[in-house]
């Protein structure tokens, strides 16, 4: 307590020092010798304060404050009137002792010489010591202004804006240094002018006014800087009054929803939930706003939220355990329509923060077991990731609007298109952008666009030229790799090199890249990479709860600096237009029908990504589909799968075979099945079996009676023309053995027996790459040779 009194006395004397000296000289006619006692007294007070401050270092004895009004200003530079902690007292006390010595020296000289000169140096000393103090803090960071700012807002130290604020504070500290230099120079000048009036006018008034002006200017600059800063608040810490009531939360055309609407709507839904039994709720809302209202109501109301993009009836039935609610914005039997809740419930105005460590959310991805995989999360995982995202990308987002082309029920969409805007106070559009052509409509807006390769590929293919964005948009892509050429084209259209985010539902965001800098990924600072099981990437981060981290299915090469290169997926989970699907799951679902003996589902890439299914029917299946057109069979299996899977991941192409394509060891290779699907379905022939070895192919074929091949040839006695036989060999060799397509020469052909319509025919062929020759033999079911020959393929064609 004593030290506080000491500080107050010292501060008061310091501020009044010029006035006291002036009055003493002019009005009270006190000699410089006696006045010098004031300075010596001040030195003792400072000495006393410093030793006190050292003794109770944690007690917050502000030695700096003691230096008078100027450092009190330093304190206000950024902080909001925080008291100075004694933390830095050890470093400061040295400087204070130096000041004490100087003050004693000046006082002593004044006393013995009875001279005014050294008495008047005191303000110069103060300025210089402050200059030293501020300057050293710039050199040995953190700077003084930033320390003060941290005291004013304790969250700052660990906030994502830290770097931004620190830069600003360093500049403020530097500006103070310049001011002290200026002040010291002018103050010494007033000493040497020798007129006490000028000296006391400057040091007792003008100097203080200048300090006041400095504060005012810095305050205005700071307000301007704050506008450039995002106002990040963790979602769980948002208060009802965290945002202005009229802040736009989201928009849709010209209609907007404000923060007041949002808080009201959340409390309505929450009240509705709390009036019901405490049970988990399934949440699916296409409208981002409704989704966010529903989610926050569940989080604040302590209800576990099951967030699902899939609202197929059979799937909902699987996850909706007894007592579970289902909140949605589209009519669904037995579900609660959020629009009805908002209309029929009175808001009770309640709103509260919640504990992020005990707020569960469940997300879904497809698993390998055949069941959709549930990924339980805690809200703190999202919060920690938001923090990291704001730290890395937040500065770019300021004053922008958020648009989306992706689904917010998946982790990337959830984070980027609803949670981030909510945490940073940016307005978002309630509905997705679906078409590439829509992008031109937002050319006038400063936009952040959360997108995906599916959309950007279409944008690259469809756009007629660059879009004249007023402000270059910021585009993110996640869900799958974005081909470099697509990123390049999109840059041509939008002016921005898409920032790709790599991550998964289990891990959240792991790394990011822009393809203009190559294919290497830069991990987020909190993500620690290592090589885990099966050479796959293992990640540990603040938003993965398991201490051992999570091992992805991606093969990886990690460089010394922590960056890494992805080298493909190691398992059978594939992505179809950003939707993750497990191939065994689709296969198991098909087997569930009881009509399938064997099946392989393979991913295909064409104009779009899709799945294709090669099926071997069992006896029941054959009996059931006897004489049915292929389309009917396809539709049967599709309808079955649609009960469980989204339309996008149901196979688009189907082949019904007697046996799955394999090699002589019976090994079924995905590449062979894909090659089979690479051959478009034709009414002219059907493949029933396929055995493949490098350079050799054996096929079981049927040439149906309604095939075009028979047109114009002996209508009464249909047989497969020789030219068709040769062309079939060339076609199949090209598609399945990867030979050139064009035939240069036909050698040693012999057509002994006709190939008959609808008869099972075997075709054997071998390809010799060195001679570019395909040898072929057609035989019938009984093994009789029908025709044989050699095709010399057009080299390089």
């Amino acid at each position, binding site marked *: 307590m004593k030290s506080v009194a000491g500080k107050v006395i010292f501060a008061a004397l310091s501020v009044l020092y010029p006035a006291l000296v002036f009055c003493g000289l002019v009005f009270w006619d006190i000699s410089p010798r006696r006045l010098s006692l004031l300075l010596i007294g001040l030195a003792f007070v400072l000495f006393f304060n410093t030793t006190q401050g050292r003794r109770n270092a944690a007690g917050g004895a502000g030695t700096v404050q003691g230096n008078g009004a100027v450092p009190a200003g330093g304190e206000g530079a950024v902080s909001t009137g925080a008291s100075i902690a004694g933390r830095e007292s050890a470093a400061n006390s040295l400087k204070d002792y130096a000041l004490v010595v100087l003050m004693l020296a000046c006082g002593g000289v004044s006393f013995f010489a009875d001279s005014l000169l050294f008495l008047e140096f005191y303000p110069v000393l103060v300025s210089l010591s402050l200059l030293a103090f501020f300057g050293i803090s710039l050199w040995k960071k953190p700077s003084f202004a930033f320390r003060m700012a941290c005291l004013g807002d304790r969250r700052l130290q660990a906030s994502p804006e830290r770097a931004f604020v620190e830069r600003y504070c360093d500049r403020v500290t530097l500006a103070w240094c310049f001011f002290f230099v200026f002040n010291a120079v002018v103050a010494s000048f007033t000493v040497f002018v020798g007129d006490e009036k000028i000296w006391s006018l400057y040091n007792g008034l003008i100097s203080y006014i200048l300090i006041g002006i400095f504060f005012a200017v810095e305050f205005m600059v700071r307000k301007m800087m704050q506008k450039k800063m995002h106002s990040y608040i963790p979602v769980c810490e948002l208060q009802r009054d965290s945002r202005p009531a009229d802040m736009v939360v989201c928009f849709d055309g010209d209609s907007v929803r404000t923060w007041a609407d949002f808080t009201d709507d959340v409390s309505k839904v929450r009240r509705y939930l709390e009036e019901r039994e405490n049970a988990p709720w399934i949440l699916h809302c296409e409208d981002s706003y409704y989704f966010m209202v529903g989610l926050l109501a569940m989080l604040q109301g302590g209800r576990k939220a099951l967030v699902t993009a899939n609202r197929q009836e059979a799937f909902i039935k699987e996850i909706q355990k007894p007592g579970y609610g289902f909140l949605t914005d589209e009519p669904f039997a037995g579900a609660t329509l959020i629009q009805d809740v908002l209309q029929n419930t009175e808001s009770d105005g309640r709103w509260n923060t919640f504990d992020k460590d005990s707020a569960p959310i469940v997300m879904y991805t497809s698993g390998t077991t055949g069941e959709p995989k549930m990924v339980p999360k805690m809200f703190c995982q999202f919060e920690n990731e938001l923090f990291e995202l704001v730290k890395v990308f937040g500065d770019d987002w300021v004053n922008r609007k958020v648009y989306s082309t992706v689904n917010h029920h998946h982790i990337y969409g959830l984070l980027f298109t609803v949670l981030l805007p909510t945490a940073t106070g940016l307005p978002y559009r309630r*509905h997705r952008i*679906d078409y590439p052509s829509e992008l031109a*409509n937002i050319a006038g807006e400063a936009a952040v666009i959360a997108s995906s390769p599916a959309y950007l590929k*279409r944008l690259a293919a469809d756009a007629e030229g660059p879009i004249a964005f007023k402000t270059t948009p910021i585009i993110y892509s996640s869900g799958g790799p974005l081909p470099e050429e697509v990123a390049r084209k999109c840059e041509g259209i939008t002016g921005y090199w898409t920032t790709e985010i790599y991550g998964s539902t289990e891990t959240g965001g792991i790394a990011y890249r822009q393809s203009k800098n190559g294919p290497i990924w830069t991990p987020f600072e909190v993500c620690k990479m290592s090589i885990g099981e099966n050479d796959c990437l293992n990640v540990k981060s603040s938003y993965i709860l398991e201490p051992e981290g999570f091992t992805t299915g991606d093969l990886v090469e990690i460089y010394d600096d922590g960056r890494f290169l992805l080298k493909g997926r190691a398992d059978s989970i594939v992505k179809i*237009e950003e939707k993750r699907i497990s191939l065994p799951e689709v296969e198991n679902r098909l087997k569930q029908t009881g009509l399938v003996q064997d099946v392989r589902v393979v991913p295909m890439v064409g104009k779009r990504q899709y799945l294709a299914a090669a099926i071997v029917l069992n006896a029941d299946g054959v009996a059931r589909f006897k004489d049915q057109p292929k389309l009917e069979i396809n539709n049967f299996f599709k309808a079955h799968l649609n009960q469980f899977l989204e*339309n*996008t991941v149901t196979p*688009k192409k189907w082949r019904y075979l007697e046996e799955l394509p394999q090699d002589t060891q019976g090994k079924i290779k995905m590449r062979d099945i894909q090659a089979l699907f690479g051959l478009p379905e034709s009414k002219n022939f059907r493949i029933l079996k396929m055995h493949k070895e490098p350079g050799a192919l054996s096929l079981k074929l049927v040439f149906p009676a309604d095939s075009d091949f028979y047109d114009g040839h002996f209508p009464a006695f249909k047989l497969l023309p020789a030219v068709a036989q040769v062309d079939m060999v060339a076609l199949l060799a090209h598609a399945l053995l990867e030979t050139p397509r064009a035939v240069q020469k036909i050698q040693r052909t012999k057509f002994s027996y006709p190939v008959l319509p609808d008869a099972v025919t075997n075709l054997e062929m071998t390809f010799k790459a060195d001679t570019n020759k395909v040898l072929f033999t057609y035989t019938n079911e009984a093994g009789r040779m029908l025709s044989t020959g050699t095709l010399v393929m057009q080299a390089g064609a």
Partner: protein
Amino acid sequence: MSDLNQKIKEVIIKSLELEDITPEDIYDDAPLFGEGDRSLGLDSIDALELGIAIKENFGVSFSTVNEETKKHFASVNALAAYISANSPS
């Protein structure tokens, strides 16, 4: 009218690379999207592709997706009505 429907069906099959389906297999009044007995069973990716194909073939574009546009995509008939109403020629 039926000529336009036929053309639309051909565009659907060609642009979406549908296998095993001929124009005769597509009903004029059945839904194109979603599940159901008579539905063509297209998905959201197909919708984007089809929107582009229709623009290329008929010069009619869909600016935004809302309940309104979803209606136009409801069936071949609905598409034909939308195209003839909005066709530049």
